């Protein structure tokens, strides 16, 4: 099997696993623990910011309103972009669920038109 074939297979497997996790995580995920993992253990915040706001240089916005868990999980497990893949040996599913719960817990963004520094042009 070629490398690209392996990647597709792995991606589908991760997606399938994600669907299962997605069904169960509502009961188990811990947003507070997820924040600690996001900011202290796995270094997600280094590129995405402590609130998942993202950066035009280092990584996209993750929150608020994160993409579906399955899509996020699939990308994280198989990324071939500048972010290296975080495989399950590095980032266990339980930790990823908690991180996702943290991202889901981040409140909506203010409307920029209500922020004088951004709207007073």
């Amino acid at each position, binding site marked *: 099997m070629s490398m690209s074939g392996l990647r597709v297979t792995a991606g589908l497997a991760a997606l399938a696993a994600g669907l299962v996790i997605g069904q169960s995580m509502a009961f188990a995920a811990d947003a507070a623990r997820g924040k600690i993992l996001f900011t202290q253990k796995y*270094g997600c915040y280094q590129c995405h910011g*402590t609130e998942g706001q993202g*950066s035009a240089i*280092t990584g996209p916005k993750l929150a608020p309103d994160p993409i579906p868990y399955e899509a996020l999980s699939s990308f994280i497990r198989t990324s071939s972009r500048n972010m290296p893949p975080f495989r399950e040996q*590095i980032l266990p599913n339980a930790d990823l669920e908690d991180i996702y719960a943290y991202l889901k817990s981040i409140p909506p963004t203010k409307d920029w038109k209500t*922020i004088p520094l951004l709207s007073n042009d």
Partner: protein
Amino acid sequence: MARKNAHPEVNRRKFLAGVAVAGAATTVTSPDVVNAATPPVAAAKIPSALRPTAQQIAVETEIPKDASPLGGRAGSDFMVDVIRSTGIEYVFANPASSFRGIHESLINYGGNTKPEFIECMHEESSIAMAHGYFKATGKLGAVLVHGTVGLMHGTMAVYNAWCDRAPVIVMGGNDLDASRRPPGVPTTHSAQDINAIVRDFTKWDDTPVSLQHFAQSFVRATKFAMTPPHEPVMLTLDAEVQESPIKEHERNTLYIPKYSPAAPPQAEVAALREAAKLLVNAQSPVIVVDRVARTPDGVKYLIELAELLQVPIMDMNGRMNFPNTHYLHQAGPQLISQADVIFGMEMTDFWNTVNGFVDNADNDGLGTQSSKIKPGTKLVTISSVELNEKSNYQDFQRFQAVDLAMVGDAEASLPSLIEAVKMAISNDKKAAYDKRGEGFRKAHAAAHERAMAAAAVAWDASPISTARLTAEIWGAVRDQDWSLVASTGNVSGWPSRLFKFDKHYQWLGSSGGSGLGYGAPASAGAAHGNKSLGRFSVSIQGDGDMMYAPGVLWTCAHHSIPLMYVMHNNRGYHQEVMHVQRMANRRNRVANNGKDFGPIGTKIQNPDIDFATLAKSMGVQGIGPINDPNELGPALKRAVQIVKAGEPVVVDSVTQPR
């Protein structure tokens, strides 16, 4: 670095003994003594406890009748005249014995005006200050360094200037004559050829062996440095040439050659016409600019060219080339992928503009590479850098084959290119151009809305988001005649989205060589230049960069340089975080963070640095640390008043990584 103790073994008693020996030798000199192979000092054996003679006491206590024992004007006085003749106003330097001759001449003979000695605390700072000073003012700054150790300290800054196409004239003191120079440290600090240290990344260098040689070489070096492509140059100042009086035979023959700046090289006219035809006839052209505008004319010509063709300008921000307020200021990968003509002007890395590279594990870890352009796209370049390439250091980047390459200075070539475009445009093009321009107006407005919406995310976060940091700075300086003199530590490109740039001096570009330690001193040099121009200088200052040589804060205080440093204090070397993370992930390992919030060796935590206190320790007003984003605006207002009163200030804002 200064020669800390030029005569470490000589105490006062031994010094007096030496004077006695020298005096005796003078009194009893005979042809045999003069021709002796062994120096008289080493041969003599005189008890060190002799009482000083009246002559010796006079040497120690009286003011010498003739400051120059051999008589006549000091050679380094003439050197000051030469430097002054080229219009150089400042010499940035950390003091050192190997240039003590010219140092004394600068402050006494020259009266420390034009040029004025700007005291720096590290040679890397001296050179970076001259680098920033040029970019703010367009004027050449001179630097004095101790020839070996001082130049070694300054080498990274020379490389930054080289990569950033910035002229600096570096003069290194050296004592070439091994038979006369003092032993010990001064000899350790001498070399056969100090210029060799930086020869690979200077445009030209020389070692003048006489005053006339110095005069010619200084004027020549100035001319070379100031002709595009602008680059640093290096001169050795030999101790004997500096310290000896003007020789008898030189008194009536020494002269200072007239300095006449050379006109910048323009691209060949027929090639410019060919480029104009390609632009005029293209359906989706794009112009990509990096280090084009160094004067108001550069910006003005780019606007004229863009509007003639309704062509989008992608600004890579090597300088402030094109106003981001203009609707033809565009960004985005679709500009490159859909283009049929891409015109790169003074590009640092054209390959990376038209190709993609992802640093992943594919291709046995070499990463993914792919073309970004569609088949048949015509590639055009203009650059002066190709006039002066060197082979060792790889700042010329990957080779990109193009369809039309022009060698010449882009800013100087723009008027001819514009004329060629005007001649090539036919009336039937106008409607298509107008339609194209209308699309870019809408795209520009949409991009602005997206940027504002993105800036609002994590608006109240602590640590402070880089968008909030940038927006608060913009709010504080927007009513000033501001100049963003540097931005280090990476704030995710927010200034180009939140500031409104329309003047060439509002953004001076980055270091060039990406060597840490540029931002703090280059900002100070630029601010020093901006001071006389009445501009307000602000620098977004990375913490890692500041800590390379924070002594530049003292220089700011000592010379009353009005500059607002706003710390982007993300407490880490974040460029490196992802490299370690990437390696760990490829090897299926979790990066070891130790006690920090990032891989061991990449964070500046435990303890956290208090930059306000650091500033205060060197006479600079310090505000912070500020963790609450709502406190940042009021702090910046205070800081603006300090800078307007003519003083530097550091505002320590604790920020998100990027």
